[in-house]
């Protein structure tokens, strides 16, 4: 039962980016997978590793990051259930780390098994390539944010993005979702100081755009939040899921 859920997420995620046949879905369902649990902050993949397995996020949220020699950290993206958080490990060594943001369950799939699947199912291969290209598009938005947006717009944009991504996989109820990110995570994602982040969060609350407490995000004014973040969801290439 757990297995079906696990692979179901993976396949659903892929199907956001490409059409899969019954045969494709069945083959993905047959992937041998070992599941491990991680606590918030645990390393899921480490910079420098040459992994022999893919890590598929089953439940919980994860993030990619790099830490500089002086200890400053840059968070580069967040992963939601269904994502393979280290797909580049198939072809490259890890030049960054992946950690759990929340408690997470991760499915480990041997590279040999994944490669065999991709070789024999080009539709899956293409969908995976597309997922990776969309991740690149997301990264570009982040870059634009850090290079040229005000702190206020950056934070608003990030919340919009996560709200949209979680919504696409059914993890938003009404206007709320769980996104237990700390101010440190936020500032590390957006090139801000924690002080600055704190100030902006207060402003966003005061402006009635969102509430953010205890790891729960409530979006009070979705159009307003999008305008504040200059957010246009096209770059996420999300197929509209039936509401």
């Amino acid at each position, binding site marked *: 039962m757990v297995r079906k859920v696990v692979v179901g997420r993976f396949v659903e995620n892929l199907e956001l980016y490409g059409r899969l046949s019954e045969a494709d879905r069945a083959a993905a369902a047959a992937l041998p997978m070992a599941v491990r649990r991680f606590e918030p902050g645990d390393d899921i993949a480490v910079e420098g590793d040459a992994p022999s397995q893919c890590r598929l996020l089953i439940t919980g949220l994860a993030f990619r990051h790099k830490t500089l020699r002086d200890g400053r950290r840059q968070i580069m993206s967040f992963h939601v259930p269904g994502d393979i958080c280290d797909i580049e490990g198939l072809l490259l060594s890890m030049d960054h780390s992946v950690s759990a943001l929340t408690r997470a369950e991760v499915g480990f799939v041997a590279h040999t098994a994944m490669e065999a699947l991709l070789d024999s199912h080009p539709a899956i291969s293409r969908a995976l390539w597309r997922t990776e290209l969309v991740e690149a598009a997301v990264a570009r938005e982040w870059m634009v944010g850090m*290079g*040229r*947006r*005000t702190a*206020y*717009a950056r934070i*608003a944009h990030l919340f919009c993005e996560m709200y949209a991504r979680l919504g696409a996989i059914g993890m938003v109820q009404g206007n709320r979702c769980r996104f237990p990110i700390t101010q440190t995570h936020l500032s590390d994602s957006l090139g801000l100081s924690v002080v600055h982040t704190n100030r902006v969060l207060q402003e966003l609350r005061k402006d009635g755009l969102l509430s953010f407490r205890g790891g729960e995000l409530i979006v009070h004014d979705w159009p307003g939040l999008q305008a*504040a*973040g*200059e957010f246009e969801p096209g770059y996420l290439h999300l197929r509209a899921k039936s509401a």
Partner: protein
Amino acid sequence: MNLILQPVMVDTGEEGEGCLVFAEGWLVAVLVRLSETHEDAAGFWFLEKGFGRLDRPDPPIFSDLPQAEQWIKEHLEIRRPPRWPGDRGEV
């Protein structure tokens, strides 16, 4: 609104001449005069640091101090800080 410009030496590594800009007793910006090494912009004034409403990712360069003061006044008159480029804030 009256701005008070207080000359000061600013250690940015090369230029020295600068001024602190006060509005109604509040420090709102630090302007710095660009040296020869900035070629076309040599002698121009740069918003080295803006506070509050003047804190923006792409700080402007002004051909002279009156221009800088004009810009600063305009941007202070906005009641709410601009949040994104093109946002006029509440005037």
